């Protein structure tokens, strides 16, 4: 990609963030997994980029793209933060098509000069170059779910295929998804209460899909299905998912996604429980 790599040191100096990638899909795929709101906050440190999307102050999704995923990654300040229109960013990243012809890769070089400046994208495929200048916005305070490991009550690691079907076929007429995790039967249960009746899906603790199961105390929580449904996007891309709940009933879903280079990226979902917590069912 001669067009994207011929940059003098001077040129790089004016930017506080420079990131280059041989295959733009390693970046865009992860962003697609959290694209359920128009706007996202990008938080960059020398370790990588974290992109955060929130909805209704109840759910937050974070996509982490580590510095190692990029072929070049330069951050001149301790941290660089900006808010951006994610829909536009994704349209720009996939300008040469989401399913490229086999053997062709779209290279990306992303530069940002700092507060008040646009995010610059230079994309190249087969000698065709696209330059995008996306205006950035004032960063907004993101929610702190204060989800710390010491308060975690239960933790399950599942192979994603185990949850994929369940999530894609959730009864959307039900307002909530009820998650039961207990040290005894039914161990891990997903329940919906829709127009056509209730449905329960149980996962035995020792099934092949279950890689880890830790739970000392029965916990039943309800989450708005409309808030959880968007996480299906990350689920379909992922190979493993970790499901955790804490003492307050907050839910953390962590998806492990392997990109086309075989590197692992993570997408986190945090969701607060629905207010009226029901009596545990027998």
């Amino acid at each position, binding site marked *: 990609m001669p067009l994207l790599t011929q940059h003098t040191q001077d040129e790089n100096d004016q930017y506080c963030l420079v990131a280059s990638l041989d295959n733009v899909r390693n970046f865009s795929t992860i962003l697609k997994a959290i694209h359920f709101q128009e706007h996202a906050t990008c938080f960059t440190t020398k370790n990588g980029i974290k992109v955060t999307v929130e909805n209704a102050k109840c759910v937050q999704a974070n996509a982490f793209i580590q510095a190692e995923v990029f072929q070049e990654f330069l951050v001149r300040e301790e941290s660089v933060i900006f808010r951006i*229109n994610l*829909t*536009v960013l994704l*349209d*720009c990243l*996939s*300008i*040469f*098509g989401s399913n490229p*012809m086999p053997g062709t890769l779209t290279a990306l070089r992303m530069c940002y000069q700092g507060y008040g400046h*646009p995010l610059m994208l230079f994309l190249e*495929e*087969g*000698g*065709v*170059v*696209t*330059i*995008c*200048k*996306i*205006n950035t916005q004032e960063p907004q305070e993101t929610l702190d779910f204060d989800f710390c490991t010491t308060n975690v009550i239960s933790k399950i690691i599942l192979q994603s295929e185990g949850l994929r079907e369940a999530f894609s076929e959730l009864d959307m007429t039900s307002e909530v998804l009820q998650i039961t995790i207990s040290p005894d039967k039914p161990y891990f249960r997903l329940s919906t209460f829709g127009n056509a009746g209730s449905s329960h899906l149980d996962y035995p603790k020792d099934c092949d899909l279950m890689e880890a199961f830790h739970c000392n105390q029965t916990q039943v929580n309800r989450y708005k299905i409309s808030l959880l449904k968007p996480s299906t996007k990350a689920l379909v891309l992922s190979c493993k998912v970790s499901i955790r709940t804490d003492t307050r009933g907050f839910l953390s879903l962590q998806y492990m996604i392997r990109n086309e280079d075989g590197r692992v990226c993570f997408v986190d979902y945090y969701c607060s429980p629905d207010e009226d917590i029901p009596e545990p069912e027998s």
Partner: protein
Amino acid sequence: MKFRAKIVDAACLNHFTRVSNMIAKLAKTCTLRISPEKLNFILCDRLVGGGVSMWCELEQENFFSEFQMEGVSAENNAIYLELTSENLSRALKTAQNARTLKIKLTNKHFPCLTVSVELLSMSTSSRIVTHDIPLKVIPRKLWKDFQQPSVPDADVSIYLPVLKTLKSVVEKMKNISNHLVIEANLNGELNLKIETDLVCVTTHFKDLGNPPLASDDASRDRDPAEMAEVHVDIRKLLQFLAGQQVNPTRALCNLVSSRMVHLDLLHEDVCLQYFIPALS
């Protein structure tokens, strides 16, 4: 007024089906002009539809094994018909793997283009599917509205890049903006630009090549690096690109600064001209 024609060759039939599919994607209703040598699919969209016009021409002898026609009179030996282009492409869908295709102008209470398809069958009895496509015969006095569009002298002529890449870029740009700037110069460079409050996107194509200039061409004295630009409705361009299923033999883009984009495509022996007016 008489018209009947027959296709027996499978390759010709496929080619004709492809042309009719392309027309259906480009124009909802179109005018079919039948003359002794040629068939034309014409779209003359006066301002209502944004002023896009199309002129598609095919030599009848490259497609039809039998072709008989008799126009309105000896001196005006042509027939102009208006039809819904999708009806024709839908009728031809059944003609895949057909033995023969016959097209005939008929009058069944109202004028129709009757398409009969003889399907391949294992037994001796033949199976025939018939479609009657309703149409309007365009009277002689309105013919002047469907003349071949005159091609104004282009400021810049340039070969188009691979249409698949072009389509994908324009598709994504359409998500962001309604207007698109097309600019090109005589150095083989073509740029597509959109600009909104949120974002500016420019795609640069280079080394596309310019066709040789005609000797009396005004653009001879033009600075090769100077860009000619035209603002167009992005949907019109996308509609054109969406209609192109196969890469054409030749694809040329002619820009008349601030006036129009003229796209000139050659698919084997079918020539398609598409005109998108500039936005004011």
